C-alpha cells in the first residue's frame, strides 16, 4: 500500500523527468502521471490479495483434508456453531462491502462528505461483526469447545450426561479458531486501513483526481468479505 502514499514534499530542485513544471501535490516523484501512480498502487494491491488468498488457502486445504478423513466428526462438531449468528455476521459483512464500495464511488465523483459517511458506516459494521464474534467465542470458551488439549467439552458432557462429541472433535475447533481467528485479525487490520483512509479524506487529501487510499482500503475490505463468504458455509452450514 505504501506506493499509494503521497509525497507531500514541495517541488524539490532536483525535480525533472516529467515535463510539467507544476505537478499535483498527491503525485509522488517516482511516477510519471497520476494514472501511472494509480495503476501501480492497484497492481501492488492485487498481488498482495493473491498472497492473502494463498495464505488462507493453506487453512482451507487443511480443512478439506481433515474433513475428508473425519467427515462424521466434522458434521457433529459443526452443529455446535451458531448458524444464526454466523448468518447475521455474513449479512453485516456483505453490507459493509456495499458501503465500502459506495465510499469509493463517492470519492470518485468528488463527494467528500459522502465518502466520510460510507467509511464510517463500514467501520461500524466491522465493530458489529467483532461484537457478534466475541459472543460466539465467549460461548465456545464457556463450553470448553477449544483446540487441542484445551478441549474440555467432553468432561462437561459426561457430567451432564449430555450428547458426547465424537473423538478428535478438538481438531474441528482448532480449525475453527485458526480460520475465524486469522479472519478476525484481518477485520482488525481492515479497520485500521479504513480509519487511515478516513483520516486522509477528512484531511482533505482525497479528490476525484486522487482517491487511491479509499480504493485500496476498500479492496482490502472486500478481501475480508471474500474470505468470510467461504468460511461461513464451510464451518457453519455444512461442517
Amino acid at each position, binding site marked *: 500500500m505504501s506506493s499509494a502514499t503521497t509525497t507531500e514534499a514541495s517541488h524539490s530542485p532536483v525535480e525533472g523527468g516529467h515535463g510539467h513544471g507544476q505537478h499535483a501535490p498527491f503525485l509522488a516523484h517516482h511516477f*510519471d502521471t497520476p494514472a501511472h501512480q494509480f495503476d501501480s498502487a492497484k497492481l501492488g494491491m492485487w498481488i498482495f490479495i493473491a498472497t492473502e488468498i494463498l495464505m488462507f488457502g493453506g487453512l482451507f486445504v487443511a480443512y478439506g483434508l481433515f474433513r475428508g478423513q473425519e467427515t462424521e466428526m466434522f458434521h457433529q462438531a459443526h452443529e455446535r456453531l451458531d448458524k444464526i449468528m454466523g448468518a447475521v455476521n*455474513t449479512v453485516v459483512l456483505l453490507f459493509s462491502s456495499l458501503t465500502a*464500495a459506495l465510499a469509493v464511488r463517492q470519492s470518485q465523483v468528488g463527494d467528500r462528505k459522502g465518502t466520510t459517511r460510507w467509511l464510517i458506516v463500514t467501520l461500524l459494521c466491522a465493530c458489529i461483526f467483532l461484537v457478534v464474534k466475541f459472543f460466539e467465542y465467549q460461548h465456545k470458551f464457556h463450553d470448553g469447545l477449544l483446540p487441542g488439549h484445551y478441549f474440555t467439552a467432553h468432561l462437561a458432557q459426561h457430567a451432564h450426561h449430555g450428547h458426547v462429541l465424537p473423538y478428535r472433535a478438538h481438531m474441528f475447533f482448532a480449525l475453527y479458531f485458526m480460520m475465524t481467528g486469522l479472519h478476525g485479525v484481518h477485520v482488525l487490520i481492515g479497520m485500521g486501513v479504513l480509519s487511515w483512509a478516513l483520516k486522509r479524506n477528512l484531511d482533505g487529501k482525497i479528490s476525484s483526481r486522487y482517491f487511491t487510499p479509499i480504493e485500496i482500503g476498500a479492496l482490502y475490505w472486500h478481501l475480508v468479505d471474500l474470505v468470510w463468504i467461504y468460511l461461513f458455509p464451510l464451518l457453519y452450514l455444512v461442517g
Partner: protein
Amino acid sequence: MSTASSDHTSDHAHAPQTEGHHEEGEVHVHVNSPLFMIAIFAALIVLTVATVAVSYVDLGSANTFVAILVATLKASLVATFFMHLKGDKAIHSIIFIGAFVFLIIFVGLTNDDLATRSAVDVDNGSHRLERTGVVAPGGLQIPAAPAGATTPAAGAAAPAEHH
C-alpha cells in the same frame, strides 16, 4: 499509458474526466451507479438466504457442493463489481484467478498424496491402501505378526485412552 477506464454502456454516472480534467495521464475510472451496487448487494443477500435454507435440507454430499457453488457465485459478484474487476485492467483478473489456479494445484497434489500412500496409523500398523488393500509405499512397517484386516478409516470409534 492505458488506464482503468471502461466503456460499457450498462452503468453510468460520471468519471472524473467529465469535471474538466482532460489532461493526459489523469486517473480515469468507470463509476457504478449506487442503484446498481445496491442490486448486487440484494443478490448477495438472496444467495446467503438460499444457502442457509439449503443447509437445513439433507442432500447428502450435495450439500457441500451447493454451499461451495453458492459461495463462489457470491465471491464472483463481490470481485467483479465491488472490487471493480469488470472494466478493470485484465492483469488484475489474471492475478486474482491465478491465485485460485495455484490453490487448485495445492489441493490436487495434496489429494493425490493422500490417496496414494498408505494410512499411517500407529494403532493399527496399517501399511495398505485403504481403498484397495494393496500394499502401498510409505507408512509404517507392518509388524511381524499379521495385523488383522485392513482397518478403520479415520473417524471411526475412538480408542479409549484418548478421552
